[in-house]
């Protein structure tokens, strides 16, 4: 009995060591980034020369960086909205059985499987072949929707798949037309999932870099701008930019998770 308890506590210690190492490796670099964002030094390097907030103020004094942030926000919002709408349509369609359904399901997921750099090259060639003007709200928007749509679909489809069809059937028995059933029954119940899908798609679009760099015109999104700074300038404010981007992405994801969790609770109660 005593040896079993010692054995168990040894395994507990190993497990704790593993968990601590896991979190240190996962979050350590992020904490270092946050620390450097407050470092009063002209280069991103040790030693720590004092605490300052000036790099955060510097971000908002740079019109080009602010413009990139706005570009990423607006693009993310539009791409997220379109991807969510398209994913909703796909998910509704996939509730039925039809020929080639398994194949189509896999085709939807192809953008996830194709490596980013290959995806970027493919889009570059595709848009060039059709003579599309390269720009933020033309080629980049399509590239972002192409990237986020599979994730939006994977987020929304399980929710719709679990939806109790008998409620819809009851509504139709009472004389409601299909659009009314969708608008008055289905939509209110999946609204939390739609918000979560939108926010998740927004985050993916906001952070997207590799495909964007191939199909961008003269404007920049914030990941592309940050990369330009890394390869071309001493930019001591870069860690601060990284923290701001992280806060935006994490906040959007957390809000999405909370809304989604709330939706699950409401669905469980009903």
């Amino acid at each position, binding site marked *: 009995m005593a040896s079993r308890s010692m054995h168990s506590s040894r395994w507990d210690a190993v497990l704790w060591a593993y968990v601590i190492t896991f979190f240190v490796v996962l979050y350590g670099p992020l904490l270092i980034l946050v620390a450097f964002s407050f470092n009063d030094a002209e280069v991103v390097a040790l030693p720590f020369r004092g605490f300052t907030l000036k790099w955060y103020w510097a971000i908002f004094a740079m019109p080009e960086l602010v413009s990139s942030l706005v570009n990423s926000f607006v693009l993310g919002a539009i791409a997220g909205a379109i991807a969510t709408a398209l994913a909703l349509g796909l998910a509704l369609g996939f509730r039925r059985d039809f020929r080639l359904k398994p194949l189509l399901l896999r085709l939807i997921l192809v953008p996830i499987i194709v490596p980013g750099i290959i995806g970027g090259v493919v889009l570059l060639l595709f848009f*060039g*072949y059709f003579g599309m003007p390269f720009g933020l709200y033309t080629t980049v928007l399509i590239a972002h929707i192409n990237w986020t749509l599979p994730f939006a679909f994977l987020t929304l489809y399980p929710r719709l798949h679990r939806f109790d069809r008998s409620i819809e059937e009851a509504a139709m028995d009472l004389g409601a037309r299909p659009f009314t059933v969708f608008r008055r029954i289905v939509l209110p119940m999946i609204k939390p999932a739609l918000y979560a899908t939108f926010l998740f798609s927004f985050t993916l679009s906001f952070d997207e870099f590799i495909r964007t760099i191939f199909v961008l015109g003269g404007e920049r999104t914030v990941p592309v701008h940050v990369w330009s700074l890394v390869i071309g300038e001493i930019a001591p404010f870069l860690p601060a930019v990284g923290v701001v981007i992280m806060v935006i992405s994490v906040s959007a994801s957390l809000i999405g998770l909370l809304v989604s969790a709330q939706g699950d609770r409401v669905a469980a109660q009903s």
Partner: protein
Amino acid sequence: MTRNRFEFGNGAGWSRRSVLQAMGAVGAASMAPQSAYAQQKSIDGLMVNAVMGGPLRGIVEGATGVKVNDGPFVSSTDNVAKLMAPGGGTRYDLLIGVSEFSKAPVLGESSGKERALAYDPAKIPNVKNLSEIARTDLVERDGKTFLVPVYWGYDMTLYNKDHVPENDPLTQSWGLLFADKYAGRIAWYDVPHQMIMVAGLHMGMKEPEKASASDLAEITKFLISKKKNVRTIWTTFAQAVNLLASGEVVVSYGWIPIRVALQRRNFNITNNWPSDGLLVWSHGAYIPKDSRKGDEAQAVVNAMLTAEYGVALTRETGYLSGSTAAEKLLSADEKKAAGYDVRERGIKTYGLKWPTDLSRWVEAWGKVKSA
């Protein structure tokens, strides 16, 4: 929903009329800025973003009345890839990249297959002021000019003067990058082309770019033998700057902008002038042949060869103007620090030439990195 009203619940909602009014207002608002900007001439370009940074953009746009929308520059070879991709002839109006890398794709396989517009000499009169070094990279065919070098520079070894003596033959050679003396405090650059070129120059090869298989094997063996001295191999500007600024390394392969950025912040870092051959290159401007803004692009190129632009270019970025007009306005100290007088000083220069088989070089560098 009633026929003419979108209901949100609790009595709130939009009438159809108010929705249409809002859409009209948004449409009108989005048109206004477009109509204002539509008046200004502009070109889309790809170039090292620093050459349009700060006051440089104002000089070019002020002289030409053309707004330069410079996209994020990846590399000179990326420029060429975009030029050669479907639709590449119309996507950008001006591309500026390493002349040596751009020459063959710009000229195409034969006369008539050029991918760039021929310059109109009347639109680029400042080409007559091209310096001797820049002029060697002018790309012409059948009496027409397709690529104009607008600025030039060189790669070097950067070193910390607090730890590395300046007046030492080892310091003033590519051997500094491989010196056992500074073992553990050296950084290399993660690009096969440059690293193998400088190793070849250091080993005394006359034309490293034409290295045979056995020569390349010798270079690879040499690099592997010296890898033990290397602290790290950097890939980005920011990495190189931080390595030197923090003192983690005292010797590093370097670029002009790295030197300028560190010296501007009072770090005691400078570059060597390698006796085995300063690796020089130029950046040349070419206009994709299907660009509809050839006149505007040529005006920008001409402006980049003015004295005013050239002086600002050297003072802001450290790059050297392709025009002798700029050189005349710089002080003797500025010219010496920048390197305008390298040939007068008797420093051997060697052009960054394209290897005869880059894939073998890439493979060789892979062996060095994995050793």
